């Protein structure tokens, strides 16, 4: 670089050397660019009137005066702001820059603030902002994005602390900090503490006694194992998990619609934790449990556990009857992304919806990578039965029905000989004359016609039919969206979920059997997708690919019972009664016919939407009540022209019939039609019209359908079907997502939904893996695999840190939801890495990780203040003692209830967003809206009021006292107090406590009042709501 002379605004003349320019370029400019230009530039945004992106502006300063005084860093506002002095703090709302950087700035100002940025930047130079990749790579040096390493485990010179790596790392660190661990807590304290931490319950007095009799290491470890193995472990720890995934059973907002089957997820978590399912497996299940090749099956319950995992995706808050469906979708997908990224990664990916992340190596594209994955799945109820149970008797039924079809066809063909006499005696019972389109129509309308009339009428009908066929073709070719469910090619794409026969399309002639009553066959159908070919109990959700709303009407050739059909806008799963914006069509129709569906295409013109049909109990927003429900669908059409119903007239089945001119010829034509149809039906080759033709004569009673009159072998087959069908259970359902074809979400410029840029290919965070997903499915399975892959440095650290926080009261990373730049640094980086690496080595076992923590020496330290040096480590970061803390709301309520012999735990109560339990809320149970992994423990008088005056405590105190009085009748209150102390505190009352009670109880005569008083006081005591 050349030697340059610089004139500084006429104030100063200075020769800059290459060195000082190099210093600026190396140390100063990158910091200015990265941390300052965003808010302080000369291109439109100069907060406080200050621009820092070229020299003159910098020297001019801002509203507060000059930013720098070259040669005088101490007086320079810029330096004060970097140092957080005199009320200035820069960068704003961001962490203070490192001491090294600040020193560089001081040095730079001290030595004259050499600044080669002579030109005011133009927009085209984009302010010299570094490429995102460079920023990202710089940010990815943050500790959390580097792979965890198994640390050296230091040797320590203290017997007690030399066994477990946890203790060695902790002890070593205490020594480094000049601290020493406190003594071990007493056995009675430890046994209570262990119970509250592991199972959230108070220890039973006899357990306490046993442990006090033998508080050995062996006895302790046995107790730990026993508690880890108890059902109550999962009931306690699942609540943490529910906080991470903002568990709720309703969507909130107006009317607070319920989320069907939501509690399945809670029960799944409890079982998974009790079964110690490996954490990587649980992550896979949470993202894509429904897609795993080998799902985790609970044989005892007959359910596919894995498939319940994605239920949390459904626990989003939803607006009610929304008018901006895209905005709504962005808002709830943002919530899904926010929750999985915080819960699984300890990162705030949803902060990058409008721009690249401000502090972490997360790009705006990353947000839309996730977004594409999540909008390639749709909200639904899903069947979570084990594959065996879900598919029970299917192949058997298929076999029986195939045999039955042959036998019925043969039997009916033999019966054709009586057709002439049957039809000649046929009396049309219906009031209205049947249309010629109906199979029987030709006969009823024309049997008595003259030849000329017959020929004329058929000719006219044929012309009419041809015209309607033409119209039909036009309606389809001009349709804005058309789906033909009669072909096995799924173009345009559609998917089917559930455990029914709707998985694929059926050829014409497909038929259903009656499961009760005197008749055999329910109907013979045209080709299409049918859900009830095995049983009406089977669950089915049929869902089309996306289409843009255009045209005026929606039609479906549809049949079914208790079904729900709708055009869903932007996957919005709710509806608003009284408004048809999100109309759900509830339809009962025995045979597939074109039905106009209620929808509001004009309103939603241009919106991304899809068509879906659901069996009753799979309905959204609310399932119907019918265990038995089915649908059959042949075609779906969106357009301006209504499709025509072409029926199955005689002339469509037997083309020669259009020539007939006599009743005799007509009878013959009918016979031929039936014979050909039966032949075709028998070999599964029939056409739609043949199927409908047969069905008419089945329903009219010509084709024998009475069990009583059918031959024995046919009857036996039918009985066999009914037996097999009866064994099919009502499916077990859970909230979930269903796969549809992959979609790549356009990036929204500045997060604005009206400004879509190019689609972003689905993928994981680029800081971990830049390779986009193969676009063959929703991408959920690939996302799941990437999250548990080696490249992700966060997954286990985040989890073990939360387990640690639950056990020790504070995470090694205190910001348990945020491992990014705004989060806190780990207090014990080696220990955190040890736990993370060991966790994975140990089969991702949560129980083993927790066991290692509670069997550490650190866990068993006293919480007594004697000899504690609070000055050196006021927050107990180095864990020289056990941190006493208030119990979580649920644990408090469970303990109050259990002393009153009510063992129903709070975790089993519904969590309804608009009716959150006030008692739990006042003790800081979170509002279920985003991930919470550190609950606050505020102190407010409302807590005291709830304990003093609330019904829960009053009722429980009375009940507890009653029980104590009953089991210890005629005992002195002091003896009762001893019993109650054992139950509530796992210890004996102290002398001074007995004296306090004595003093107060002296004025009470009634013994029962005294016992109540004891109970009331204990419940209201702080010790009762503390673990220490």
């Amino acid at each position, binding site marked *: 670089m050349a030697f340059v002379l610089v004139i500084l605004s006429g104030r100063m003349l200075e020769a800059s050397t290459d060195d000082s320019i190099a210093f600026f370029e190396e140390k100063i400019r990158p910091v200015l660019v990265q941390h300052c230009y965003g808010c302080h530039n000369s291109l439109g945004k100069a907060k406080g009137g200050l621009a820092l992106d070229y020299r003159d502006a910098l020297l001019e300063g801002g509203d507060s005066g000059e930013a720098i005084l070259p040669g005088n860093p101490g007086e320079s506002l810029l330096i004060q702001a970097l140092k957080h002095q005199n009320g200035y703090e820069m960068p704003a*709302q961001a962490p203070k820059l490192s001491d090294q950087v600040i020193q560089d700035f001081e040095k730079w100002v001290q030595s004259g603030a050499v600044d080669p940025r002579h030109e005011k930047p133009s927009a085209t130079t984009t302010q010299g902002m570094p490429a995102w990749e460079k920023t990202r790579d710089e940010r990815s040096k943050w500790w959390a994005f580097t792979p965890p390493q198994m640390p050296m485990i230091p040797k320590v010179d203290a017997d007690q602390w030399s066994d477990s790596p946890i203790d060695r790392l902790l002890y070593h660190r205490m020594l480094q900090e000049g601290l020493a661990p406190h003594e071990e807590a007493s056995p009675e304290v430890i046994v209570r503490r262990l119970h509250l931490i592991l199972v959230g319950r108070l220890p039973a007095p006899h357990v306490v006694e046993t442990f006090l009799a033998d508080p050995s290491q062996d006895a302790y470890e046995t107790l730990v194992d026993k508690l880890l193995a108890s059902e109550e472990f999962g009931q306690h720890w699942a609540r943490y998990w529910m906080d991470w995934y903002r568990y709720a059973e309703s969507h*909130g*907002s*107006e*009317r*607070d619609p319920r989320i069907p089957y939501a509690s399945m997820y809670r029960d799944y978590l409890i079982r998974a934790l009790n079964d110690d399912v490996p954490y990587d497996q649980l992550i896979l299940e949470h993202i894509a449990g429904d897609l795993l090749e080998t799902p985790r099956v609970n044989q005892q319950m007959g359910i596919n556990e894995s498939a319940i995992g994605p239920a949390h995706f459904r626990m989003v*808050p*939803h*607006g*009610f009857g*929304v*008018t*901006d469906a895209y905005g709504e979708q962005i*808002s709830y997908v943002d919530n899904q992304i*926010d929750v999985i990224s915080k819960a699984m990664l300890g990162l*705030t990916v949803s*902060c990058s919806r409008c721009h690249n992340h401000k502090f972490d190596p997360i790009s705006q594209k990353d947000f839309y990578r996730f977004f594409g994955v999540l909008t390639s799945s749709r909200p639904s109820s899903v069947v979570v039965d084990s594959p065996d149970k879900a598919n029970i008797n299917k192949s058997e039924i298929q076999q029986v029905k195939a045999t039955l079809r042959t036998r019925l066809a043969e039997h009916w063909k033999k019966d054709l000989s009586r057709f002439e006499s049957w039809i000649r005696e046929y009396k049309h019972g219906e009031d209205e004359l049947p249309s010629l389109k109906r199979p029987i129509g030709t006969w009823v309308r024309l049997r008595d016609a003259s030849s000329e009339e017959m020929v004329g009428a058929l000719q006219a009908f044929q012309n009419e039919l041809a015209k309607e066929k033409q119209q039909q073709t036009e309606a389809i070719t001009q349709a804005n969206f058309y789906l033909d469910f009669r072909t096995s090619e799924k173009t345009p794409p559609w998917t089917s979920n559930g455990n029914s026969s709707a998985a694929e399309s059926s050829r014409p002639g497909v038929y259903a059997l009656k499961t009760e009553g005197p008749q055999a066959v329910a109907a013979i159908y045209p080709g299409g997708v049918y859900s009830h070919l095995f049983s009406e109990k089977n669950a089915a959700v049929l869902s089309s690919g996306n289409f843009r709303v255009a045209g005026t009407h929606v039609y479906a050739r549809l049949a079914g019972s208790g079904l729900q059909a709708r055009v869903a806008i932007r996957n919005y799963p709710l509806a608003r009664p*009284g408004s*048809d914006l999100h109309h759900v069509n509830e339809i009962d129709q025995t045979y597939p016919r074109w039905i106009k569906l209620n929808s509001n295409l004009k*309103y939603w013109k241009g919106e991304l939407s899809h068509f879906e049909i659901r069996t009753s109990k799979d309905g959204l927003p609310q399932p119907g009540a019918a265990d038995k429900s089915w649908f059959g669908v042949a075609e779906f059409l969106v357009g301006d022209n209504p499709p025509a119903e072409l029926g199955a007239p005689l002339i469509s089945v037997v083309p020669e019939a259009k020539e007939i001119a006599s009743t005799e010829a007509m009878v013959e034509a009918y016979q031929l039609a039936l014979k050909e149809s039966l032949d075709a039906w028998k070999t599964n080759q029939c056409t739609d019209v043949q199927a409908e033709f047969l069905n008419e004569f089945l329903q009219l009673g010509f084709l024998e359908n009475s069990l009583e009159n059918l031959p024995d072998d046919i009857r036996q087959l039918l009985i066999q079907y009914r037996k097999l069908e009866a064994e099919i259970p009502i499916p077990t359902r859970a909230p979930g997502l269903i796969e549809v074809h992959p979609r790549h979400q356009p990036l929204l410029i500045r997060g604005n939904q009206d400004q879509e840029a190019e689609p972003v290919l689905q993928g994981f965070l680029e800081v971990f893996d830049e390779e986009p997903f193969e676009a063959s499915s929703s991408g959920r399975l690939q996302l799941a695999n990437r999250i548990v892959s080696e490249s992700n440095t966060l997954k286990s650290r985040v989890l073990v840190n939360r387990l640690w926080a639950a056990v020790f009261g504070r995470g090694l990373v205190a910001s348990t939801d945020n491992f990014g730049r*705004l989060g806190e640094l780990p207090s014990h980086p080696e220990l955190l890495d040890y736990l993370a690496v060991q966790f994975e080595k140990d089969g991702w076992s949560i129980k083993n990780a927790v066991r290692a923590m509670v069997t550490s020496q650190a866990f068993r330290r006293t919480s007594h203040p004697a000899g504690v040096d609070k000055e050196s480590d006021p927050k107990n970061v180095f864990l020289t003692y056990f*941190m*006493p803390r208030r119990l979580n709301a649920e644990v408090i309520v469970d303990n109050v209830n259990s002393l009153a012999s009510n063992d129903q735990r709070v975790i089993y109560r519904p969590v309804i*967003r*608009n009716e*959150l339990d*006030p008692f739990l809320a*006042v003790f*800081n*149970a979170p*509002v279920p*809206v*985003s*991930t*919470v992994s*550190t*609950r*606050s*423990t*505020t102190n*407010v*008088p*409302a*807590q*005291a*009021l*709830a304990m*003093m*005056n*609330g019904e829960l405590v*009053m009722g429980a105190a009375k009940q507890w006292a009653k029980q104590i009085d009953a089991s210890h009748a005629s005992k002195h209150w002091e003896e009762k107090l001893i019993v109650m102390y054992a139950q509530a505190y796992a210890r004996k009352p102290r002398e*001074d*406590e007995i004296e306090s*009670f004595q003093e107060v109880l002296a004025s009470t005569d009634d013994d029962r009042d005294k016992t109540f*008083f004891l109970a009331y*006081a204990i419940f*209201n005591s*702080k*010790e009762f709501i503390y673990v*220490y």
Partner: protein
Amino acid sequence: MCIEPRNRREFLKWTSAGISAYALSSIINATEGAMPIASTQHHPAKARSVIFLYMSGGVSQVDSFDPKPLLKKFHGQPMPGTVERTQFDAVGNILSSPWKSRPYGDSGIEMTELFPKLADHVDDLAIVRSVTANFSEHAQGNFFIHTGFPFLGHPSAGAWVAYGLGTSNPQLPPYVVLRTDKAGIPHGGVSLFGNGFLPAVCGGSVFNLTGDRAVPNISPALAKAEQKRALNLIRSLDSGFASRVIAEQAIQDSIRNAETAFEMQQSVPDLVDITGETKETHDLYGVTSANPHVAQFGKQCLMARRLVERDVRFVELLCSSVGIGAGGVANPWDQHGDILQGHGQMAEQVDAPIAALLADLKQRGLLESTLVVFAGEFGRTPFAQGTGRDHNPYGFSVWLAGGGVQGGRVRGATDDFGYHAVEDVSTIYDLWATVLHLLGIDHERLVHRYGGRDMRLTDVHGNVWKNLIS
């Protein structure tokens, strides 16, 4: 004193260990032992307290503060131009206002005669006719205007004000929501008043003014003497416990809380007992009105004054439902049908009490330091839905009075039909930016870090309505 975000975080650590706090608003949140008396002042404050008159369901701007003569001319004709999506998709023809309009006051601001008594105070009002919201649905709209976000979990404006200003009365919560048995909680539920991720003390405490139990659990479950004895015993147990574990401060705080709670059992009933107010005051506010809706809203207005006198920072009032035209307990102003009767009776409910409140505050010298805000979650369409009007978030009116606001002013305008805001288009964020500004707070600097992000009431938006400030 200027508390920067970092110091504020320190200050929060003093109060609590955590990040996300929430207290359901049906529970009283007073502050003893929970929050120091500290306030954020970025510049000198004009107002000390806010009274938020919440008109849930949506007041029709064209029938009240933004009259449009053109509607009369085009009455019965189809709405010209693009019609935005409405929630019920029942877009009728233009409906002229059943209420006449004329200029009022020295300022000559045009208003309809829907609020005749309030109109007498027009020279105290700053009317913003160009407010827009982002949602056409009640619950989302309610959350949006309260918190800046369309669903539960974010702190309510009252909670942010409490967070920003702290409190100087430890016996009362800094944010109180008034209701009666008739006036219920708007769609979305009590989370509308929640503290979100702010300290629990900031959350709205709902006082039900019907009957003698304004707040749950406020009535002693034991006889007073007995309870006192119990509390003495508990205190001695707790003091012992505090000396045996290393959490003394937290335990001492909760001991103090128990004592505050004990006293609140007396002080809250005293506060809500208005028998000490004069008959003139009762009459002025309409507490004695034969119309039960007026009586209950009058009681709320009177209570708002009493709370402001006691340094409560943010008081929110709720209307009762007259049961007309789809307006229910949660959305009383929601006249999709029969707007004539519905809005007429709703206006009658609030008109005299609000006028009384303004007059009383003024006469007591409190109006200068008390900012009164009148708003609903959206306005209503200029075209009909049957005999009523549908929701319209694209342009509606709110007004402010007192607390440093220049009265007799109008800001912004809607188009000739009163449909879209077209001049000085404003947002809910602007409203709160202005409110915070009047309280001495820079809305961009009132932040709380939550989940890795510095959260604000105004998100990343908000411009102060500077021309309305006196």
